[in-house]
């Protein structure tokens, strides 16, 4: 399949690019995620296997 047949993101003008560059998303920081997991561990159900096994739902909608 030729590249011409691939739909690509439409080009945007410079003003839009500038605005978006000024709004960086979440930085990926390994120390931060480590702290987060330590905190999560304090609230996570102790017996994960039983907790997950007991969660059985009937379908809905």
């Amino acid at each position: 399949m030729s590249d011409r047949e691939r739909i690509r993101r439409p080009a945007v003008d410079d003003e839009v690019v500038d605005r978006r560059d000024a709004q960086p998303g979440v930085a990926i920081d390994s120390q931060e995620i480590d702290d987060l997991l330590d905190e999560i561990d304090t609230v996570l159900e102790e017996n994960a296997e039983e907790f997950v096994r007991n969660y059985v739902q009937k379908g809905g909608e």
Partner: protein
Amino acid sequence: MAIPKVLGTETEFGIQVVGDPSFNPSLASAMVVNALVDRRRRVGWSYDAETPRRDARSPFADGFAPDIDGAAVNVVLTNGARFYVDHAHPEYSSPETLDARQAALFDKAGELVAHQAAEVASRLLPEGQRVALYKNNSDGKGSSYGSHENVLIDRSLPFGRVIAHLPTFLVTRQLVSGSGKVGGEMGRGPATFQVTQRADFFEEVVGLETTLRRPLVNTRDEPHADERYRRLHVIVGDATMSEVQTWLKVGTLAAFLAALEDDALPDDLALADPIGSAWAVSRDPELSGLLGLADGRTATALDLQWQYHEWLVAHHRRTEEPEVGSVLDGWADLLEDLERDPRRASDRLDWAAKLRLVEGYLGRGVAWDDPKLAAVDLQYHDLDPARGLFHRLVAGGRMQRLFDDTEVAHAAEHPPTGTRAYFRGRCVRRYHDQLVAANWDSLIFDTGEELLRRIPMMDPLKGTEALTGDLLDRSDDAAALIDSLGGGT
């Protein structure tokens, strides 16, 4: 010109009684809904306008009674919402709102309502047990329960155009609507981490069902309004906890449908295999996979979302709706971050936040099949602020918010002002002793006369604060209200 987009969300909560593996989910759901009866008063639901089997493809083929099995437990709330037992789940159907921000607010208010109800219900249980509610869509074992969006559209829009255009939009919108899942279900092929809870459960492109062979385009034609309108029932999209995500999920859908009504979408971008593509997009959290279009072209889900963004921005230049403008900006920021690295959106998207947690544990040596990851997946959605992992992320400042707690608490008690939900909610609060039944499009009062009095509300855009606020303020009882309105029926 597109009609105003009246929006609502419907959430079926997952439920379990922690400490009692043999709990009965219908009974537990009834306990949760009944917990609100004292505080909100119990107002019966009137089923005379329900036609869930009516099909948008053949509008004259009514038939089938509404399914009221298990739905006898019903509360109409002072914010205009309905809270009831749907089969084996408590369900919150939000009041009708006029824009995506309000829709997200009243969706979030539903979490507060449900959590408070669960806390009251838990007090009736033996020591050590509690009712836990989860705003998710799958038990990880092959059962799914719904999260639906309803959008008012113009009945003059041929339904065939909805069928042509909507599937590709919904399949690619999964990047915005997913809440993330560890593993796969329903034999759809291997999966480690999925963008959505729901994709595995879709099997048809178009159909009337919602409980089996689920379709991308649901043709349920229950307008709950007069003949000018159709109430599109969208069943693709996860229940989302992130406020920003819910806002963008609903807001992009509403903007898309307005553009469709105005014939502003140049191409339907039909996929060669919509269902296979839905499964593939969900299984591709790095967002690199190519989808095949029916005409032979290819594109990533992200690039198709960018294409829709361009068209909706062009449409917006004509309409200049301010709220839609902020949705389009927020959507662009989100797509930009997803393009660089999906983890950059972990402060706005449930699936990206969950992916970071899962990857963190993988980095600590936890294996993909370790129950701990499934527990993280489930507990992310616990409505209890002390236990739910989403709530822990919010408390740690790791999720962006749109609302503060005061706004959410207010929305749990008071209706939106710009639709008939205002009139419904105010009547529940002010005339609850005389209000014997309610549904989306009418209220039925017992004013002490021989006959019950019914107030029809067939236009979702009437019954607003501007139109009825003063009238409600000065009507001391339902009889006075009905007389002022011209008698009712």
